[in-house]
């Protein structure tokens, strides 16, 4: 049979079984790894060794703890993104909201260390509160701009990311510079009362457990509350929601407060649970990776837990590949991107059936 463009047809699927859907997704991921494997072979890297380094992220106890650690900020930010994405509001600003959360947390710690005004026991709770509030506040601006003036949220949140990052850099280079850091752009090291404790036995930030609880809460909000209903209706059709008398401004504001607040908590986990202080450009892409996590989880908060954990592992395997095989740590980016491209393609295959040949 001759394969020409003419005898390839696309037919919209009217229904799809769960099995087919899962099968297509799995095949997408397998394809991504296969393509990456071929690329490695061509460039003289043993693909098995590369895959091995990735598997180790989840089987080696120390690396596993690291995977949980690095998956935690991703989880928080992704959960928030899921809420606004369901509304069809494209918040690309998780990166900036993470930075703002980190700044708020570091601000509390710096205040605590310099003035001693906050009792030890209250340090972590006030950090949580401050990180959530500043992240939420920072996310509220693009929400209001969109609701009142129809300002494109993708572009506005993108710009706010840079402003947040530069503001953070200003703080660690200037007023919050650790006097003991010999001029390196770092904040003061967080004291033990400001550090999120690790999970007993397994290791990794116990923030991940909080994240799992939050994911259940987000799931509940989205599927079992009036607000969740309004969110879904408005996301599907802003006209319908308007006719039903729902206020877009109110819905988008609440959604972005949740989204920015949770990203802010991600920033808190990053400075308090992973780095232990604030540094120049400390998020370096977690906010963007969280978009991918939210998307791959199909905007399902419970699936996001798994996706965030897996991507935390991918980040860790970047370091492993660098140490063991001397590859660039950005090699895992290739995996991330290929998985993403193939999953995007498989989304299409879930909607359409490709028929080769057959009757006209």
């Amino acid at each position, binding site marked *: 049979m001759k394969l020409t463009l003419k005898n390839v047809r696309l037919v*919209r699927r009217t229904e799809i079984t769960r099995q087919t859907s899962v099968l297509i997704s799995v095949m997408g991921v397998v394809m991504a790894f296969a393509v990456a494997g071929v690329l490695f072979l061509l*460039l*003289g*890297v043993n693909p098995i060794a590369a895959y091995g380094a990735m598997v180790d992220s989840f089987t080696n106890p120390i690396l596993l703890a690291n995977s949980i650690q690095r998956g935690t900020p991703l989880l928080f930010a992704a959960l928030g993104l899921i809420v606004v994405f369901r509304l069809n509001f*494209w918040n*690309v600003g998780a990166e900036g909201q993470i930075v703002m959360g980190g700044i708020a947390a570091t601000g509390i710690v710096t205040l605590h260390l310099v003035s001693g005004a906050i009792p030890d026991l209250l340090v972590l709770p006030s950090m949580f509160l401050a990180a959530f509030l500043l992240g939420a506040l920072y996310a509220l601006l693009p929400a209001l*701009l969109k609701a009142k*003036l*129809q*300002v*494109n949220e*993708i*572009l*506005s949140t*993108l*710009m*706010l990311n*840079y*402003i947040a990052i*530069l*503001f953070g*850099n*200003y703080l660690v*280079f*200037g007023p919050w510079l650790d006097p003991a850091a010999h001029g390196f752009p770092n904040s003061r090291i967080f004291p033990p009362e400001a550090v999120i404790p690790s999970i007993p036995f397994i290791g990794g930030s116990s923030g991940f457990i909080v994240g799992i609880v939050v994911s259940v809460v987000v799931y509940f909000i989205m599927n079992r509350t009036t607000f969740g209903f309004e969110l879904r209706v408005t996301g599907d059709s802003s006209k319908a929601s308007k006719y039903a008398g729902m206020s877009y401004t109110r819905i988008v504001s609440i959604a972005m407060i949740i989204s920015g607040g949770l990203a802010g908590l991600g920033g808190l986990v990053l400075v308090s649970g992973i780095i232990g202080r604030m540094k120049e450009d400390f998020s370096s892409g977690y906010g*963007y990776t969280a*978009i*991918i996590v939210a*998307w791959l989880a199909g905007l399902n908060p419970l699936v996001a837990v798994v996706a965030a954990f897996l991507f935390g592992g991918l980040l860790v395997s970047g370091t492993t590949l660098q140490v063991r095989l*001397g*590859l*660039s*740590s*950005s*090699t*895992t*980016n*290739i*995996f*991330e*991107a*290929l998985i*993403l*491209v193939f999953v*995007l*393609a498989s*989304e*299409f295959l879930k909607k359409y059936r490709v028929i080769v040949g057959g009757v006209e």
Partner: protein
Amino acid sequence: MIVSVEEGTILLLAALGEVYAERSGILNLGVEGMMAVGALMAITTYLFTANYIIAILMAAICGFALSMVHAVVSIHLKSNQIVSGLAITILGLGLSGFLGRQILFKGFSIAGTPVQAMKSVAIPLLSSIPIVGPAFFNQNALVYFSYVLVAVLWFVLFRTRLGLNIRTVGENPAMADSLGVNVYAVRYLCTGIGGLLAGLSGALITLGYYPTWTEGMTLGRGWIAIGLVILATWSPFRALLGAYLFGAVTALPYTFQSLAIQGIPTDFLQMLPYALTLVVLTAISFRGLRKRLAPPASLGVPYSREE
């Protein structure tokens, strides 16, 4: 001032391409990735061929190839353009980081191997104008090319049938389709132009001003270029003006000492273009300006006939 023009031109090339992509309704957040691949491929090709033209072409082709991935995913597969664009950025950064260490030239990795940067050519008379002359008219060929490109791209976009088609596709693809314009073809073309120019811009980084490749040397310029597109409100000519402003700010850390501004931290100065972009973005949302300067109405929205 010279550094402002250098940095500005890098941003300008990438932004011009993105202006076209967005005018046709395709938001490509992959500029940074295409730039990174362009930067690496330019220097690699130059090391192997010692020919600037082939090297520059190679960079453009690789940028183009990456943009086609985005095009297929967001035009034919009708997927989410933000996610796809992010994938392109990650893919480009990953590929360039990986390849830069894996490809060997005479036994050494590309990383850290210096090349001869493209020479500046002074244009007689013009280059002897004080201050402005050396900055604008004593530059390498790619910079002069960018001047011509602005004029050509502006002319095509606003004074030709093709330009009208591109703008219609970005505003109202259904109408363009009913008028017999091939929406997909226009979008592929514009996304491709975006890729080509992002690759070129990458080539200018490595062959023009920073002739040693290091990982991550694009330093977020691709994202800045996307901001520049907004500041320029999707016009090639205004992109030219904005580029030197952004360029000047990008150059600030290098020229800070010579400027000797006291009391204002550089971070705040560097925030200015982004804050300004946000202000512009808000301003063009007001009624009077929206009609003329707003983003293309179908930006980021996939088009399919059946709906």
